[in-house]
């Protein structure tokens, strides 16, 4: 509403008309509030013409006149910093010769003092780490993943080398799926040989996974722990309903780390973590896997669980202060990642992007270690982590984006 009132407003016909309609309006409403009206007058008199049949009371006029702002109102921003009573435990993966192993590289994860990448309040000491999957037998994989190592899938040692040397895996995640009684029923002893071969082929730490068979996994992981004694591998995984005691004992005896896996349940996660601690594992020997669902297939559960766990740990819950493992290569199970579809566009791009977006989400929610499949995801996530740690100085100008982003 903009009414410009001059000095002689009482005498102007149009103002009189305006007042008349204003009065009628007021009669209907009872009162009037002038909002955002700029009044440029020394003194203002409302003269309402007496009219036949017009009996409305002269209303109270409240003025809410905004001052004309001439200069920018200055305000200072100060970062809303919080401190947390708890710290996430730092876990060292792999052991060098002097530490009783044979790895040339060891990786540290965890140790957070704040939520992921909240570097305005604290710098978390360790960057998230990247593991790449290999299997102890050729398996069905999406073509866009498979093409990068199809020629070495029959040889886990060569496959491991490819992941480390060509694609930059910081950790190799060896999945002994052939031990599944329904697949090849490979014996724990045979499986342990594969572990030895891979340990010799690469100098990075290992994650050693079973087949998911509840009865067999503890035996397989036990045998693997023995041949890898002192290497501080990650045994994947102890569950509430498998023989987690056997796995914990093997880890303790041979200096390894155990993954505590629970399916989407924070209370069971706490319970399992406590059970493993009770078995004599130190906090530095446990990593938790609260289940990673793929983008579009329950990732919402995963991200909220990870945030809850990380926050609980930072707030001081000792049962949830372990670093988080996220098997984001699970995203290849989503049909959007591998299925041919005109509607969804080329799967060669869509597939790796599906894995990358799943990983970004798990990383922002609190994941510390990722299992990945596609080399492009590894490259992009590594670069992203370096950026978020401020390790790359950028000279990016965005001020003119409106004109400068092309067609």
């Amino acid at each position, binding site marked *: 509403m903009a009414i410009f009132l001059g000095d002689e407003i009482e005498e102007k016909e149009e103002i009189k008309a305006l007042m008349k309609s204003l009065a009628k309006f007021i009669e209907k409403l009872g009162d009037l509030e002038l909002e955002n009206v700029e009044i440029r007058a020394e003194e203002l008199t409302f003269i309402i013409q007496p009219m036949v049949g017009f009996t409305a009371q002269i209303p109270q006029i409240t003025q809410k006149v905004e001052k004309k702002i001439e200069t920018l*109102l200055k305000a200072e921003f100060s970062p809303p910093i919080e401190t947390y009573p708890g710290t996430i435990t730092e876990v060292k993966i792999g052991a060098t010769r002097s530490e009783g192993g044979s790895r040339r590289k060891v990786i540290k994860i965890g140790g957070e003092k704040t939520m992921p990448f909240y570097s305005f309040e604290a710098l978390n000491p360790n960057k998230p780490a990247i593991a790449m999957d290999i299997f102890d037998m050729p398996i069905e994989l999406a073509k866009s993943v498979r093409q990068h190592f199809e020629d070495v899938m029959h040889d886990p040692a060569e496959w491991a080398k490819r992941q480390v040397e060509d694609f930059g895996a910081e950790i190799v995640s060896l999945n002994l799926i052939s031990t599944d009684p329904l697949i090849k029923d490979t014996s724990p002893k045979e499986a342990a040989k594969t572990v030895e071969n891979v340990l010799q082929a690469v100098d990075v730490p290992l994650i050693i996974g079973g087949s998911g068979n509840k009865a067999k996994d503890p035996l397989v992981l036990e045998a693997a722990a023995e041949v890898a004694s002192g290497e501080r591998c990650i045994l994947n995984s102890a569950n509430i309903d498998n023989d987690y005691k056997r796995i914990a004992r093997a880890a303790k005896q041979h200096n390894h780390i155990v993954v505590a896996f629970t*399916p989407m349940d924070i209370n069971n996660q706490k319970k399992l973590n406590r059970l493993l601690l009770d078995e004599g594992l130190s906090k530095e020997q446990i990593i938790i896997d609260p289940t990673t669902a793929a983008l579009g297939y329950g990732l919402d559960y995963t991200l909220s669980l990870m945030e809850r766990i990380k926050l609980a740990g930072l707030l001081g819950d000792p049962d949830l202060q372990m670093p988080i493992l996220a098997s984001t290569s699970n995203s290849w199970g989503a049909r959007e990642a591998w299925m041919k579809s005109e509607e969804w*566009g080329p799967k060669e791009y869509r597939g790796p*992007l599906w894995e990358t977006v799943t990983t970004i989400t798990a990383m*922002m929610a609190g994941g510390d270690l990722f299992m990945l499949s596609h080399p492009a995801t590894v490259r992009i996530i590594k670069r992203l982590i370096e950026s978020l740690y401020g390790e790359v100085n950028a000279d990016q*100008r965005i*001020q003119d984006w409106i004109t400068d982003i092309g067609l």
Partner: protein
Amino acid sequence: MPEKVTLLSVYRYLPQTNCGECGEPNCMAFASKLLDRRATPDNCPPLKKPKYKEQLAKLIELIAPPIKEVKLGVGENLVKIGGKEVMYRHELTYHNPTAIAIDVSDTMDDDKIVERCKKIESISIVRIGDTLKVNMIAVRCASKDPDRFSYVVSLVARSCNLPLILCSFDPKILRAALEKGQVANKRPLLYAVTEENWREFSELAKQYDCPVAVFAPNNLSLIKSLIKTLQAIGIHDIVIDAGSYTEGNLLRDSVNNFIMIRRAAIKRGDKDLGYPIMAVPAVVWMVENQEPVIASYREACMASLFMNRFADLLIMHTSEIWALLPVLTLRQNIYTDPRKPVSVESGLRVIGKPDEKSPVFLTTNFALTYFTVANDLESAGINCYLLVLDAEGLAVEVSVAGGQFNPSKVKDLFTSSGIEKMVKHKKLIIPGLAARLKGEIEDLTGWEVIVGPRDSSQIKSFLTKYWA
């Protein structure tokens, strides 16, 4: 709403007559609905009476979310952003899904503009009962020509029904678009107020009653100053663009800024920063000589990153569906209500017209799994029975690993569904991802278990091989 708001403090501002006009038994029940945002003060008819005017105003202020809800556009495609109550979705739920806009440049040829608008508007993917869509179009004035821009704005407005973002830092250009672009009464978002242009810009926003974005890259004190100034002028529909850099240490700064803005508003009650935040992942396209595939990929990553850290509005450039699909799907994930399980009812479903020889399939009650399987069976024209197992709303792989999907539940489902009386054979097809349960299910039910494909898209070819 801030944590201190209690049921009683909300109740205090209600009429307390227990009239029931809102559909609740009494005012206390209504207060509880207001508190967890299942109702708005609008739903209480008596509150609209003049005598409650003051009370209503106080109530609205009391329950206002710390992040203002800002409405962009008008009519059926109106987009609401902001309105957030919490930092993390598990604390309550996130309201108002991130709006996604795609840009159109006024330097494009007219027919290309029309084509692009139609393409953007037609993007539509059905997923778990939702339709995923792009919400807005951002019209960029790259020509720096007011006449061209206002012409293109009107062309875009005529070509599609999506709300618009009008992008130029020159208030004269935006004025031209509002005067001649036929969008003056459609509440486009005006992008953007800066340290240089705020005087003319704010006049424009007031005159046309449009929401505005403030732009001050990597400078939160300036963001606060601009907003404070706009508020004093009487502008309250504001969107914050603190810059969304996508590279190196600047990306780190941008992510930090997003977090700090949101935390300052929610935890510190900073009224200057209690507005929706926007990101412009489209800036990845400013790099010259870049492969379009690389740019689209990077842009989708940045959009996902910023959406994970509180972005309420995104302006993107790619129109490639393979790059947009993950972003749209992520939005659907982040904005599901964590208070509601994403599941369907367990039990028996009849697909097509099955008879006593028809196959029997098993799946879980996770909504997405169920809809995918049911849809694949229907579109393949398979007459069959589909048993839906209560796996506590989890997908097959996860629930098999976690034990929610187990043989004794299969046996119970046999009994409760009565499937044994509906078919003459004793063959059950289970999901490929549940293969390891084959033996146990056979032992427990006495049925033969056939391991189906790992993905239901393969069911048709599977059936021709394994089902005579």
